[in-house]
């Protein structure tokens, strides 16, 4: 199996470990990714705040390039990229004037978009294409005894619940259970981490991240599993600042793909676990501690 792949800026920077671990586990499952050539920034939430038309045009170059490369799907692991590309696809289908504007701009670059690319998320591919059975077969070190809080965040299930429920998503729960982990009941699955507010208005942003960690702690979780580079950044890089404000909460945050890799017996370094600022260790034995 081979999937067209849109990494996005974060997976080349703050979210490197997400790319490293995702590529490693997919490879392990016999899936290779083919990177979209010369992709550009999706625009995220920031561009949309400045100019809606330009934001659509910016993102459209990626879908047009994907279509021209003959791709009918595009895997977008970052939550912001996933939503922006998905939203654009929806807008083009729904609003003729947006489609016209986009086409006019694309024509300037000798590009064209017929609207045939389906944007997909790794959880969607893992559960609905590869399947839990194939994943279970690869588990050599079940994550027994590890209590995980599954954190979906906002933009992969809202506003378009394409592959999971908007209020009670379960795809990651099922995946983690397949790895042998204990999924804790944690009602904050889709609550906001604060996004970029942690940097711009820390009083507001950090509090949201703090609430996630605190509730995970109260529910007995050892670790938070995330799907988003921005959530990971807030919960991991600002962890010290959160503890400074509200007291100790010894809970690391890792990507779900890193937990998959560990269960598959892959080396922590290969999964980018050494890039965490809050080190992840198994509850009892320190076997997966990173240098």
């Amino acid at each position, binding site marked *: 199996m081979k999937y067209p792949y849109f990494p996005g*800026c*974060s997976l*080349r*920077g*703050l979210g*490197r*470990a997400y790319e490293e671990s995702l590529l490693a586990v997919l490879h392990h499952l016999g899936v290779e990714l083919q990177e979209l050539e*010369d992709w*550009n*920034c999706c*625009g*995220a*939430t*920031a*561009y*949309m*705040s*400045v*100019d*809606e*038309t*330009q934001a659509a*045009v*910016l993102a*459209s*170059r990626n879908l047009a390039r994907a279509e021209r490369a003959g791709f009918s799907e595009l895997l977008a692991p970052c939550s912001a990229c996933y939503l922006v590309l998905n939203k654009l696809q929806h807008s083009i289908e729904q609003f003729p004037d947006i489609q016209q504007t986009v086409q*006019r*701009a*694309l*024509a*300037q*670059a000798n*590009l064209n978009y017929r609207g045939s690319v389906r944007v997909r998320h790794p959880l969607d591919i893992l559960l609905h294409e590869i399947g839990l059975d194939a994943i279970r077969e690869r588990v050599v070190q079940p994550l027994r005894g590890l209590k995980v809080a599954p954190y979906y965040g*906002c*933009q992969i299930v*809202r*506003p378009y619940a394409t592959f999971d429920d*908007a*209020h009670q998503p379960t795809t990651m729960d099922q995946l983690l259970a397949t790895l042998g982990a204990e999924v804790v009941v944690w009602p904050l699955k*889709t*609550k*906001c981490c*604060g*996004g*970029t*507010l942690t*940097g*711009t*208005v*820390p009083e*507001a*942003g950090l509090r949201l991240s703090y609430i996630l960690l605190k509730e995970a702690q109260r529910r007995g979780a050892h670790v938070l599993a995330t799907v988003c580079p921005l959530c990971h950044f807030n919960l991991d*890089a*600002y962890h*010290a*600042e959160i503890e400074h404000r509200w007291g100790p909460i010894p809970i690391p945050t890792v990507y779900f793909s890193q937990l998959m890799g560990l269960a598959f017996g892959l080396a922590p370094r290969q999964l980018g676990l*050494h*890039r*965490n*600022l809050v080190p992840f260790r198994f509850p009892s034995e320190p076997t997966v501690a990173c240098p």
Partner: protein
Amino acid sequence: MDYTPRQIMALVRADFKNEVLQSRTIWLCASCYACTVDCPREIRITDILYALKQRAIQEGVYPRHFPIPVLAREFAAMARRHGRITEAYLVLKLFTRTNWRALLRSWRIGLALIRTGRFRLRPERIQRLDELKAMLAATASHSSQSSFPPAKVT
């Protein structure tokens, strides 16, 4: 937050343009879409707040030293200029434009991110920048079409 999101919706409908466009509330929306999927009247609150942010920037009435619109504008400028975002430079830009002290307070995080290879210092850019520039240049500013209140408010 100077108004609640509900108050913003009501102010928009009652045509309190300046109050809305100059408010900090619209910028505090993190675009998590929780309200959009839960609104019983199916008001697309997140998208309306986006439209208000765009309008505030267009008219130059956003709160000047409030870091959120500054970040949005710097982000857009970098995406336009290079086609990609290099996070380290974006953060640096944001702090130098808004709050030097925050930069000094965050040096520890910055160093840790460099040490773990997550703050990359080589600027990212796409190869076919002229392609992107031509596309954006062909995108007429939508200021002529925009109305207040935004058409999406029902």
